[in-house]
């Protein structure tokens, strides 16, 4: 049920084409990641909205296939 790093990056970039995505596999188990996403689309949005945009790009995988993804967003 794990996801690989590339899949996560591809999904985020599909929704946020200008995004710079840096992902780390924190535990090396394909299950605990941290992602830093930088996109101009975040401009003027609250942190909650920004994180929701990233969650939405993952199409419901967050909390399911993807157990743990720490997110940091930057404008």
């Amino acid at each position, binding site marked *: 049920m794990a996801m690989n790093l590339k899949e996560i990056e591809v999904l985020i970039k599909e929704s946020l084409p200008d995004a710079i995505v840096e992902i780390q596999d924190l535990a090396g188990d394909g299950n605990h990641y941290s992602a830093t996403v930088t996109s101009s689309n975040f401009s003027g949005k609250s*942190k*909650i909205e920004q*994180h*929701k945009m990233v*969650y939405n790009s993952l199409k*419901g995988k*967050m*909390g399911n296939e993807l157990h*743990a993804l*720490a*997110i*940091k967003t930057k404008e």
Partner: protein
Amino acid sequence: MDQQTKDLINDEITKNEVCLFMKGTPDAPQCGFSMAVSNMLKILEVNYKGINVLENQSLREGIKEYSDWPTIPQLYVKKEFIGGCDIIKEMYENGELKKVLQTKNISYKKD
């Protein structure tokens, strides 16, 4: 989400000024993310209610729908959804969490 779950959530966030929906309890968190937020609130000496979603499957799913947020923990202050672990951590580090508590008139350790 069934009405009973919705009522339960409404009830908790109305009765408790600071409410943390979490896995486990403040004394025995069952997940690192829940523990992290719980600890930040403890350090700030905020009086909060921890609600263990692991004890109630419909609450565990319901809170995600209620907040439109896919993960747990979730922090509510005066009925407003403040964020999940990453956001709270960032707010804790940059001082915004204290500002929110201050604005919402919640007592915390000022030092």
